[in-house]
């Protein structure tokens, strides 16, 4: 699933490690997410959306 995690993360000034720690996942999971290789659960997607200070999931993930 395509997403804007990398772009939004950089805008928020977070490193992959920081985003991983805040989301309760490993850095490897964040890397896989940013590369679109892993589709997160709804819970994790929601957590990431909040950390990246976005209002809607669609602002982070391409849900099509």
């Amino acid at each position, binding site marked *: 699933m395509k997403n804007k995690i990398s772009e939004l993360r950089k805008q928020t000034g977070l490193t992959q490690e920081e985003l991983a720690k805040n989301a309760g996942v*490993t850095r490897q999971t964040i890397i*896989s997410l940013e590369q679109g290789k892993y589709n997160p659960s709804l819970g994790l997607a929601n957590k990431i959306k909040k950390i990246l200070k976005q209002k809607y999931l669609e602002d982070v993930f391409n849900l099509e």
Partner: protein
Amino acid sequence: MIGKAEWFKRRKWLGWGLMPATWQGWVYTLVLVLPIILVTYLPNISEKTRVVSLFIWAIIFSLDLIHIMVTINKDEREKMHEAIAERNALWTVIFVLAFGVAYETSKSLIATGSVQIDPLIIIAIVLGLVVKASTNFYLDKKD
């Protein structure tokens, strides 16, 4: 318990169990292994003392390792990867065990006219079935 889960990560590439992930994990491993080497090779220790010490140390070691493996933190992606990898490994083991049973059965039938199978193979398969059924029962109840 003695060891902490955050000192380790699950072993992915070579075998099962844990790999030290921090310097504390390496120290823990050394502290765990050193007494075994000392007790095995130190002179002037009776054989009985050696065996009893190693047995007690193995129990402490095993319980601590199980505790670490159960409490080790894994995110959803790691849990999924572990589940798939362990499932594939288990299917391979079951396939080989089933082939082993078939081979031993036919070999013993031809040679002696009766079925002779290593009971450990049967025990392994039965225990695996029990663990699978119990786990599915627990998960169905939980969710």
